[in-house]
């Protein structure tokens, strides 16, 4: 009997740990707001609006939607974007990384596979283009291109990431920026979810403990 209880207990512990890992993984999947309005040139980071633990990987994703760019009456140039230059400034404004990435695509919303772009970006794109029928339903669609760059900010303070969109002759076509806050302690990493996660984990372990004690007490 005690062997069976022990196995059940082990199974429960493993299950709880797995569930915890899933919860923690889902924390990292939380994506950013898409920092762009109507210019057709947008950038976001996967830590937008949240504090980043120092040394954590930060991915900046830039998006270019050709159909939107001409909507800005001041954007007279309409050459195709060929590369995106990601300029990472630390809290003192110094340029720490300057990386140029060839743009990928095109992709069309909503027919986007799970993958390189966060849902918020797709939602943003959907907000800005026309509708078409698919399978009898009227759905939004837009063609867009994207590029991303990952770095590990290594000093504290507010970092700025600027995406510059260049054509094949390196002429600037548009730009956009995003700010992330790099913090030193894990308490600042993800301000809301950890508390919930901790409470959930404690609850689970608590319930498990009560269950185990009651079982033990019952069999005694």
């Amino acid at each position, binding site marked *: 009997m005690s062997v069976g209880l022990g196995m059940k207990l082990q199974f429960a512990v493993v299950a709880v740990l797995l569930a915890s890992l899933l919860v923690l993984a889902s924390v990292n999947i939380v994506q950013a707001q898409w*920092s*762009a*309005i*109507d*210019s057709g*040139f947008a950038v976001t980071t996967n830590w937008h609006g949240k504090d980043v633990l120092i040394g954590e990987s930060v991915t900046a994703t830039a998006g270019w939607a050709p159909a939107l760019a001409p909507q*800005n*009456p*001041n*954007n*007279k*140039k309409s050459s195709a974007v060929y590369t995106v230059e990601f300029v990472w*400034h630390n*809290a*003192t*404004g*110094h*340029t720490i990384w300057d990386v140029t990435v060839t743009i990928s695509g095109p992709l069309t919303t909503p027919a986007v596979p799970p993958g390189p772009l966060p849902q918020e970006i797709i939602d943003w794109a959907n907000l800005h283009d026309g509708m078409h029928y698919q399978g009898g339903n009227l759905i939004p669609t837009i063609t867009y291109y994207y590029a991303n760059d990952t770095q590990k900010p290594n000093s504290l303070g*507010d970092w*700025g990431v*600027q995406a*510059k969109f260049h054509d094949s002759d390196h*002429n*600037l*076509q*548009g*730009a*956009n*920026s*995003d*700010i992330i806050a790099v913090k030193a302690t894990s308490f600042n990493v993800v301000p809301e979810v950890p508390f919930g996660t901790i409470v959930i984990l404690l609850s689970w372990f608590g319930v498990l403990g009560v269950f185990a004690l009651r079982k033990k007490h019952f069999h005694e």
Partner: protein
Amino acid sequence: MLCINIKATAVFLTVLLTTALATTYNIEKAWAGGTIYIKPDGSVDPSAAPIQRAGDIYTFVDNIYDTIVVQRDNIIIDGNGYILQGTGSGIGIDISNGNNVTIKKTHIAQFDYGIHLYKSNSSIISDNNLTNNIQQGIFISNSSSNVISRNNVVSNVREGIFLWLTNTTTVTGNNVSINGGDGISIAYSSFYNTIINNTVSHNSEAGISLGWEISTGNVISGNNITNNVWAGIYIDHSNGNTLYHNNLLYNTNQVVTVGATNAWDNGYPSGGNYWGEYTDIDLYWGPSQSETGSDGIGDTPRTVDGGNRDNYPLMSPYEYWSNPIPGDINKDMKVDNNDLYQLAIAYGSSLEKPNWNPNSDINSDNIVSVSDLFRLGKNFGKPADNTSPNGKTPASARWK
């Protein structure tokens, strides 16, 4: 024959020796002996550096090929026209946590940053040449209340002048041209800076950029912003700034904004900006542009983008607009029949009269009379001889 050979040899040797001595002398005089410190106690370290101290004034006495680190407040560094040159890295003049330091008359080239101020306040950077630096000509971060004036900031690989987290700084009278990034960049949370009367041209990105996120309360006025490759002015997520009396000509995009709402004029009658491509008419005056008579302000606002507009676009470059030829009532840079027509409409009027137009009152005596007609007639048929926004002398100064 032998005598000639001996003479020739002697002359050759003399020239060679003189050249060698001169070269040696120069090598000894110009400094490339490591970083120079102006220390908190006022001393120059190393003392052999070619900087002469007289009280709080430090004057170059030769070219310097190394970095200067300033650790003392309340001093003047006078480059005296000499060169401060690097090898493509480091900082020309580096001031951290300093106050009231003046840097003037220095040609600073080929560093990462020509002049670098960090957490430094109330300093002046004036009359310098900053060229061919790899990052920025002038970089100011986390600082306030500095003045950058009359510098020539040209051909730096990134921005000419870059302000980051910097407040209440004045940038005025500079020539900021042919830089690889923006000419003047006011970046991330920089408040209440004043960018006035600069010439900003032929920069590869924006002439003047303003961002990111929450840079607010900045004033950009009286600048000639021309021929910039991407945009005259770029504003990124920054609101509450005021831009007026700027001349925007020949920029690929005059203005590009991303998520920004700002004031593009200074109210009436102060006016807005001069847009090179703006071709609207000017038949009315007044805050609502509803009173009959010209005032040199277009009758229709100029749309900047969806959420922004210049309510009072100027009909001529600000330099001329603010001081036109007497008699050029509509400020279109010539005195012609249109001005005569404007004066005729208002003729005989005084304040409070329905046909009153203050712009037709050329002599400002509160009545439109034969005296005003005479002044108009004196300049009738004359076009302004200076249509360039880069001109230094107001056209009216030559016509009065």
